[in-house]
């Protein structure tokens, strides 16, 4: 017989569900902390939590918002390569590159060019983190990710950015990144896909 007290409905509102822990975030953190004096490049929008998270793990953290630069290029009807010119870093320089979900907003030609540049500036054994939107329920507008609780990605809308969407299945993402080796890929309960690549 069911316990009456257990059957009572709890009238207190349920707390908002936290996104699940990111496995790729833990993996890249582990990889970077094993490196001596790692240099990290963050190409995402400016989120204080992301900067603090990776600045604590890096010898030096380089930040540059490629999302906004792509948006400006689009607004001025300039090719995406205009934004890539800011990626003039030395060859084989970074131990880790955070690409976030940038490739969701690049056509195949530009995404290939970005992958080529990232390979050039990443050191051998360096790692590259990529996220991609849920393929089956993509948002209508660009989103970005900020780190919360040291382990979770919260998505934030970038409603005013003019970025076209090119959501791709995993096999196309792997094809774009074919000059890297896939270390691990995950899919969260929210459908966000996470990839960690290794540069040989």
């Amino acid at each position, binding site marked *: 017989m069911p316990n009456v007290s257990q059957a009572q409905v709890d009238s207190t509102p349920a707390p908002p569900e936290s996104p699940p822990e990111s496995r790729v975030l833990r993996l890249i953190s582990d990889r970077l902390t094993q490196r001596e004096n790692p240099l990290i490049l963050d190409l995402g929008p*400016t*989120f204080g939590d992301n900067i603090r998270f990776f600045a*604590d793990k890096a010898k*030096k953290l380089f930040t540059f918002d490629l999302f906004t630069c792509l948006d400006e290029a689009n607004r001025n009807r300039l090719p995406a390569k205009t934004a890539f010119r*800011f990626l003039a870093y030395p060859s084989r*320089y970074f131990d880790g590159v955070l690409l976030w979900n940038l490739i969701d907003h690049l056509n195949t030609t530009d995404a290939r060019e970005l992958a080529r540049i990232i390979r050039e500036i990443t050191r051998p054994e360096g790692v590259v983190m990529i996220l991609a939107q849920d393929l089956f329920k993509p948002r209508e507008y660009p989103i970005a990710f900020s780190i*919360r609780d040291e382990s979770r990605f*919260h998505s934030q809308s970038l409603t005013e*950015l003019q970025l076209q969407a090119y959501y791709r299945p995993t096999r196309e993402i792997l094809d774009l990144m074919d000059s890297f080796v896939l270390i691990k890929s995950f899919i969260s309960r929210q459908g966000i896909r996470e990839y960690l690549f290794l540069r040989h």
Partner: protein
Amino acid sequence: MLNMRKMMKQEEAPEPKSVSSQIPAVPAAEPVDGKTVISEKISIEGDIRGQENLVIEGSMKGKIELENHQVKVGPKGRVEGQIVSENAIISGHFIGNIYAAGKVKITKEANFSGEIKAKSISVEDGAYLKAIIELEREVKKVIPAIGKAASEPEKDPVKHQMAAGKKN
């Protein structure tokens, strides 16, 4: 420049946390008693040294050395050069380097291009930040793998690319 603050809408976190509130044991980067203000209509070219807090609302080109004190570049301030101080708060336009023994705070109104060396940093979401950030950290011992050299070649600093990325 687009304002990222306006672009970002909170989706899944009902109450965004203050970034600065998460950084413990660091002196608060807030003005204390005694300060010099370079007001909006003042423009200075040259170096500044002293023993007092400084607020810049005007424009300044040069080096600012205020060890044990705080430098604040207000929302209308424009600074090109170098800051050496205890704490620094950037809310305006800044191109150059900051060396702070304590904390550097970049607010959402800021447009920052340059290098930051500090004990800790807080950055508000939406700030324009093209930066190289180096925080003071504990020396970590990495056990080299067998057969691998114990030390790696020195990495050259990247400064030329910062100049290429200046935004107005």
